[in-house]
């Protein structure tokens, strides 16, 4: 019990340390690094989205770029063409993303394994084609410009929280990342989350214990898509301009790579995986067209040698150390 408590508190300390670093570093680091961290944060939200549906519920979706795109374009269109304010547009865009995921999920989640994966991939391709082709609505390849930054939030002591600087935008996005992280963590440790995990282990067995696996998968899929929608809205608002590139299905596959490299079905996996796979090519100044190739290679190596990702590997090592430590310190 003591060992458990120590392990728990050291975990909390580690998380707080990461959060403090995430808050403290950007003001010192300068604009380029901050803009990089903004993109990493947005894709980490995407990775949490993938973690919920794939890492915890066991349903691999290759189409999550579509939900990011739907969130981004819904937000962009509502603000630019319908002149809605930031917050109403924010919630409407997330609701639209969730609704579409729900409607797609009903037929798609009836399929299992590779068939489900193919439907999600097909969905992403279709959304990409619509965004590119429906020029009157989306602006086609020219993209959609003039998307607003968040409205200033009035604070009780008179000043206003503004989001026109890069740094404030970073904190705005970090806030949502932390929110989604806490949401995910609490959800997967609850009975609802345990049900999702049970489905990922054995769907037939879960159903034979009286659980409606279909409605649980649909719930997980819809929530996951809404996370992706939030990532899309944040991306659109940060970038001011969006183009059909954001819905490209290959971006959805990148997220799968981030998750597997980090460790699917763990809380730290999305953060580590996204950070490593997005930061390393940037540090090494790798050509953009080589990134996908290198991502693919790294993904293959991980699936063969470390299928549980960095965090999974770390946990195994930690488990071994704890075990051997117990033998040494034990009462024997």
């Amino acid at each position, binding site marked *: 019990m003591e060992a458990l408590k120590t392990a728990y508190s050291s975990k909390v300390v580690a998380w707080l340390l990461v959060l403090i670093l995430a808050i403290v570093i950007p003001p010192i680091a300068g604009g380029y690094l901050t803009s990089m961290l903004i993109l990493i944060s947005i894709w980490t939200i995407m990775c949490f989205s993938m973690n919920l549906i794939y890492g915890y519920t066991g349903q691999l979706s290759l189409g999550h770029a579509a939900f990011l795109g739907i969130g981004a374009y819904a937000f962009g269109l509502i603000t630019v063409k319908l002149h809605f304010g930031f917050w109403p547009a924010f919630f409407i865009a997330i609701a639209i993303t969730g609704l579409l995921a729900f409607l797609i999920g009903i037929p798609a989640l009836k399929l299992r394994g590779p068939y489900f994966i193919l439907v999600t991939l097909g969905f992403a391709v279709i959304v990409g084609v619509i965004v590119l082709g429906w020029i009157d609505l989306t602006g086609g390849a020219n993209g959609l410009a003039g998307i607003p930054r968040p409205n200033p939030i009035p604070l009780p002591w008179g000043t206003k929280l503004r989001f026109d600087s890069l740094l404030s935008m970073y904190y705005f996005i970090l806030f949502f990342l932390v929110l989604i992280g806490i949401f995910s963590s609490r959800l997967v440790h609850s009975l609802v*989350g345990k049900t999702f995990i049970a489905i990922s282990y054995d769907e037939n067995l879960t159903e*034979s214990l009286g659980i409606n696996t279909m409605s649980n998968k649909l719930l997980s899929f819809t929530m996951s898509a809404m996370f992706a929608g939030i990532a899309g809205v944040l991306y659109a608002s940060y970038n001011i301009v969006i183009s059909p590139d954001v819905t490209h299905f290959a971006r959805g596959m990148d997220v799968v790579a981030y998750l597997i490299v980090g460790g699917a079905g763990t809380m730290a996996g999305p953060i580590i995986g996204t950070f490593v796979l997005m930061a390393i090519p940037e540090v090494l100044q790798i050509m953009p067209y080589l990134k996908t190739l290198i991502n693919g290679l790294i993904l293959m190596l991980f699936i063969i040698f470390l299928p549980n990702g960095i965090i999974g590997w770390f946990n195994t090592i930690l488990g071994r150390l704890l075990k051997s430590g117990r033998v040494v310190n034990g009462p024997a």
Partner: protein
Amino acid sequence: MALLEVSGLTKSFGGLTAVSELNFQIQAGELLSIIGPNGAGKTTLFNLLAGIYKPTSGTITFNGMNMTGCNPYQVVRNGIGRTFQRTTIFRQSTVLDSVIIGQSLHAKVGVWGSVLKTSANCREEQKTREKAREILSFVGLADKENRIAGSLTEEAQKRLSISMVLATEPKLLLLDEPTGGVNLEEISGLMELVGKIRQSEITICLIEHKMRMVMSISDRIIVLNYGKKIAEGTPKEVANNEEVIRAYLGVRYAA
């Protein structure tokens, strides 16, 4: 009124009729065994009762409700639990979590309650955990609740798979060869567990091949052969039935 009433139940796969025109009843509180040679349709019958297969024709009435064509989870929610012939557990999950999943259909929890950790939600989860612990001590796994299910012995895994189904709180429990694949000493322990379950007022329908056990524990026995019922009665009646001896038991069993 019978707890379960099966009438005219037929299942064909293409040209093969696995279960044909089956009629029988299970009374509340009894232990009914289903025996028969391999391929007689016993497991197919269980799959039909559990909603995994949809019958080609015929009806299944449980507790006065027509259950024909229900989904597996609806069947469980209405009170029929089943174990599988091959031991099926969540191998990577802990023992306690596995039983909690079995109990979870009775818990009123939601996404917002879980994320906001509302007191109602925490109470429900606590209740589920307590109930799961109760069941674990009932089946004799109380000291193993933190073990990973896949690391248990085959016998303990059998107990776990039964406790997961018990957690759904069935009125009728379908046990598909609960003693398959364990050694002789462990069989008597598992059979004791079956007896204990029966005493807790759960009706049991059992598929078994170990004749001595079936004869001693059952109230009634149904014998299937090629998907048809060839005999039904008390263990004594069945053991002396000539058709049963010819099809399944062999001459050695004739009194």
